Structures are given as C-alpha cells and as structure tokens.
C-alpha cells in the first residue's frame, strides 16, 4: 500500500506523491469512495500545511499533523484566523473545534481570549 509507504517518508514532496497515488488507487474501486475522499482530504491538508509553514516563515512545523493538531498549533501560535479557515475547509464540527480551542487557550493561559469565548 502506497499509504504505508507515505507514512515512512520524510521528504514532503514524496509524501504528497504517495498519498496521491493512494487516492488514485482508491478511486478506481467504486466501493472505496470513502477512502478516496479521505485521501483527497489528506492531500489538501498537506498542501494547506505547507502554506501555513510558509506563512509562519518556517518557524512552526505543520507538515504531517492531523487536522485537529493543525488547528491546535494554529491557535497556540496566535494564528486564530487560520484556525478558523482550516475548520471551514475541512468541515470540522463545532464541538471538536471548541474543545480544541478551549484546551489550546487554557494551555497558553490566554485568559482574555477565554473570556471572549
């Protein structure tokens, strides 16, 4: 499976290629629509993460994190707007998003933002 291959790779472009290959593989089988969709999301997430890393001038590592971790990292690094964008793009349910935000803000002891909740 090219997906398992992807998890072992370090080079970002190689990871993207493998995940794309996995996507293609799944889309050929109509019973694997869910898996294909997930792989598509995964590719989009990886490119979003590459963009986020650029935006933060390469100071913050995003690549390879999960959607939840990406949102958390955004908030922890004061990129609240970006976090909202990731939420919208990946249709993260409110419940999970608020949990993430709450925990991240508490971890930062950002009580102002917590009050504004």
């Amino acid at each position, binding site marked *: 499976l090219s*997906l398992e291959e992807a998890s072992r790779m370090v080079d970002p472009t190689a990871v993207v290629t493998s995940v794309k290959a996995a996507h293609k593989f799944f889309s050929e089988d109509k019973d694997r629509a869910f*898996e294909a969709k*997930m792989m598509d999301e*995964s590719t989009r997430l990886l490119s979003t993460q590459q963009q986020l890393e650029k935006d933060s001038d390469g100071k913050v590592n995003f690549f390879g*994190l*999960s*959607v939840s971790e990406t949102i958390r990292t955004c908030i922890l690094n004061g990129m609240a707007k970006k976090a909202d964008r990731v939420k919208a793009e990946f249709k993260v*349910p409110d419940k999970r998003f608020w*949990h*993430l935000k709450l925990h991240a803000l508490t971890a930062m002891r950002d009580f102002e933002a917590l009050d504004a909740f």
Partner: protein
Amino acid sequence: GLGRESEPSLDVELLKEIGKKALIDALNSVNGAKTLVLDPTLAGPLGLVTEVALLKHHGVDKMFWLEPGPLSSTTSNIVYLCRPLIKYVKILADQIKRHAKESLKHRYTLFLVPRTSTLVTRILEEEGVLGDVTISSYNLQFIPIAEDVVSLESDNAFKEIWVDGDETVIYNSALALDTLQKLYGPFPRIVGKGDHASRLATLLTKPLPEQALSTTNIPPPAAPFDSLIILDRQVDMITPLLTQLTYEGLIDELIGLRNSQVELPLSLLTPPAAPNPANPAALPSTSAAAVIPVNNEKMKKHHLTAATDPLFAELRDLNFSSVGKSLNKVAHRLDEDYKARFQAKTPAQLRDFVGKLGGLQTEHQALRLHTGLSEMLVPVTRTDVFNKSLEIQQNLLASYEVSNQISAIEDLIAQGADMQVVVRLLCLASITAGGIKAKSLESAKRELLQAYGYNYLPLLLSLSAPPLSILLPNPLPVSTVPSVAASKYPFTTLRKSLRLLIDDNPEALDEVENDISFVYSGYAPISIRLIQCVAQKNGVISNPAEKNVTDDGDAKGKGSAKKLYAHPILGWKGFEDVLAAIPGKTFDIVQKVPGGDTAPSVTSLLRPHEQTTTTIVFFLGGCTYTEIAALRWVSRQNRGRKFLIATTGIVSGGSLIQSIAGVSK
C-alpha cells in the same frame, strides 16, 4: 487472602530452566569471548529466563541492540540473537558487508528464535553473505510468567495471524504445546473453537519434527493433563475491547505491562532512606506525595511477580474497586505487627520481634509500592474520558440506545481521548450491534482520521477487512464477500445463552461477586464462559458458588461426597447449539495415548476423583490479564482440576489496536 488450594500443580519453573539451559548451550557452542547482538523485542522475554550476569559468565563481553548502522566489536566472535524477520536479517547482512569492506575479520553466528527459517537463508544468500554466517536456532518456547501462566511472549501474534495472514506462530505454538506433552504427559483430549485453533489442533495430532529437549530427568507430573482447550482470539473479540477492571489488568491498561514489567518512578521502588518503623502508619499517606508522576523523574522497570511479592498475588485479580479496602487491611495488620514490639518485655520476646522485622520491612515496602501504584491509577479512573468510555461499553453490551453511543464516541474524539480508546469502542459497537449504520460509521471514521491523522486509514481498512471484520457498516454493502456476512457475531443470542450480563443493581451485587463477571463489574468474558462450558458446566447456567450450597440433593449419578470435585471433561456436550452459533470451527478430538488402546475419555472417566488433573487452556492470539483472573476464579470453584493458562502473549485492547496500526508504544 484468596486461600489458594494447596493441591499439587505442574511445576512450570521447569520451562524456565529449559529456556535458560538452551540459551547457555547456544552461547557455549561458540568458543571464546563474544559480542552479543540482541533483537530488542527479545530483551523482555529473555529477562524472564535469565539475567545479564549469567550471560557475562558464559563469555558475553559486550551487548548491543540489533539496529541499523555500523557495528564495532572487539571480539572476533559476534553472536546475533533475533526473531527470523526480514528487517533483522537485512541489518545483519549490512553489518557483515561493512566489516568485509573494512577488512575486519569476525566469526558470525546467528541464533534464530525460536527456529530457523528458509526465508532467512534465502535472504542471506541473496545478500551474498550466507557463507560467512553459522545459522542455528535458540528454541525459546513457553516462558512461565506466573505459577499458572505460560506465554510465548510473542507480541504480534494476533496481527500476524488475522491481519497479515502469517501462520508461522500457529506452527510455533504447536511445537511449544508438543514440548509440554513431552514434559508433562499427553493431552488425552483436545477441545476447541475457531478456524485457526482448529488448524493448530490438527497440527498437534500429526507427528511433529523431533525436538531436542535439553533436560535429563523429568519428574513425573503431579497433576497430569486431562485435556487441552484451544480458543482462538477471534472467537471472542469483545472481551479484549473492554477496559479491564482488575488490578493487574488496569495496570496493563493505564500504565502498561510488557513481559510482566512495568515502568515506575524510581522513588516508588526504592525504600525511603531512613525507614522509621516506629511510625509505620503514617507511611501510606506520606508516600502519596512522592507518587504523583513527575515527568522528569527517572523511570525504572519493575518486574511484577507474585513469586516474590505475596501482596501482589493477593491483589492482582481483584476488581480495582476493592483493592483500596485490601490495602487498608494490610496496612492495619502491619501496624499491629509493628506495635507488637511494645508488648515485648523479655529479651526472648524482643529477639523474636527483631527476627520478624526483616519480613515486616519487606512487606512494608510491598505495601508502599502497591499503595503508590493504586494512587497512580485512581486519578485516571476518575477522568471524564475513562468513565464515559466505561459507560458506553456497558450500554453497548446491553444494546442500549446504540446510535446514542456512537455520538457519545464522537464526543470522546472531540475531547481528545486516546486513539485506541475510540477505535476499541467503535469495534465493540460494530460487533455487539452487528454493524454500525453506514452513515454514522462514515462520519465517525472521518472524525477519527481528522483528529488523529490520515495515516490511520490502513488501520481502519484492516479492521473492516476479512478475516477480522470487526468494524462494519450495517446493512453490509451488496458487494461484500459472503464470508464476511457469514461471520457475523451472534452477540445478543450469546448474551442470553451464556448469561454474559449480570444486573448491576444492589440485589445482584452478591451475585456478581459469585461469578466470573466480577472482573468486568458485571460482564462475563465469553472466552471464559466457553471454557466453563467444557470444564464447569453448571457455572454457565448459574453461579457455582450458590449451586454448591443449594443443590445438595441434586447429585446426578455422582456421589454427594464427590459433588465438589470437577466433572470430567466431556467436550462441548450440552452447549452444541451455542457453539454452532459462533463463527469458526468447533472441534473435539480424542487422542490415542501411546501404550494403551482404551479410549482416553473412558480412562479419564474412571480416573479416581481424588487425583488432581490439569486442564490446559491455550489462547491463540493472546489473552488478557482479566481472563486469567476469571479463570483462576473458576479454578478455585472446583476441587480436582487446575488450569494451566498458555497463550501466545498477554494482550489488551490497546495493544491489539496498536499492533494492527503498526505503531509501537
């Protein structure tokens, strides 16, 4: 105390000696000082049979882990000890080639555990180093991990069989069980359930290759086998998915036990610098402060074993809810014992007390350890996620508002619960309800991948693919292979026929304490119920503890004096329908005992009731500490039968999911 009956049981320490001797023989077969290169996954199991000092004594100069990269050795002999895995052989070949390039001369010996494989020779040949290596095997089989438990300590057995389709471990199990037959006597009858278990049984009935046994005189077994029961893990996937609630099980779930070892803060393991026996009662409470796990505190491995720690023997199988009470009792008793010092008036009495002091201090340290351990567990058992997941488990077992449970599982994902906790609950929902509604399953899977990473997609695929098929939509898509549809687990039927759930109301509380379901606070593991079907038939229908009291007149052919004795093994008799409902082959093989042409089933019937027999229970694919606890309980209910639990390894739901996900803890 639990009052273990003092009936004779098999001496499993013999197996440890065999393992130790075979290792020494292997090492001694290479002359002179040697460098030992060890497969990291073998370190734990080896630690159970030997110690480093012994290795040094037999010429081991230095030890290294078998890891990629160069190897520098000062001795001319290099000994590799590893499992026959392709990745290890590649590392080894690489190291040999490096040495050749640097024109270093070494003699290489490779010991494969537990036996050699042609695959390994082929890879070495491809790599062009076959001529440089002497290949042999170190036949490490069952390792005793408790007085009634032996294990192959093969961590990935479950994944290998049910995900990778690799049946090597079945063959290795057959060899190991055959060794038991040679040591302690034959299994007159083999009863079991499950397709892979059946394959194992078939292997056992065929002649296996002669194995060299490195023992000379074997004592006649005190309690010969009356049968072997083989269950494969797939027969009961529900039990490992649940959170174990016994003391030892909970330690495994929350802290992690590997090869009977647990990693603990150093402060918990070393006695306080100045033990103050004058004020012992204060200790349990003061130790609480030291116990809070500080992240940077040094961790040390501790071997949890009842052999040196009688307090642990007392606690390990208790439901965690009653561990506190027991600890308290022991603390009070110790306090009384220490106070005895003040009553000592004559020098003789004083000397007597000083004599006992050493023992008291050992006990004291044990108490401190287990109080500390419990205090590490308690905060976790009070967390929201822990209790929520228990609640979901209980509801699913009762098939109560299944769709609500699925959304509760999604809530747990949102709260950031452990990946394995969530996956266990989803699988449990799928098995108990016969599949999850396609739409909710998809949304749960999507949540899971978003929260924990898309790299878990292969895990989800493995769980839903045959032969495992424990995460399925309902109804199944039309394209599903028929074997998946056929393997649907009849949970609701079993719940009734095997009396799996005991009501959790106050009146039923006594009942729970009188049944194996105490281990999961009201749920009886299916695996152990099945064993009761074979070995303790009335225990399935009602609580045996009560039965013994009330059913005096009901002696059915047996004399009432023998009532307490275990009935002979009669296979699945009386439970054929139940067994037929569970997917997987059912089998009952009566083996011919060499030298006698009477059918062994008859001899076992005629066997005097006074003689204790041993029934081996082999779990193919691993068993949990909770199942061990439940089986010990069954063992205590009847006189005349001991259980020897044999397994490919100790598992928990967490370790199973992690091994399938391919992440090592």
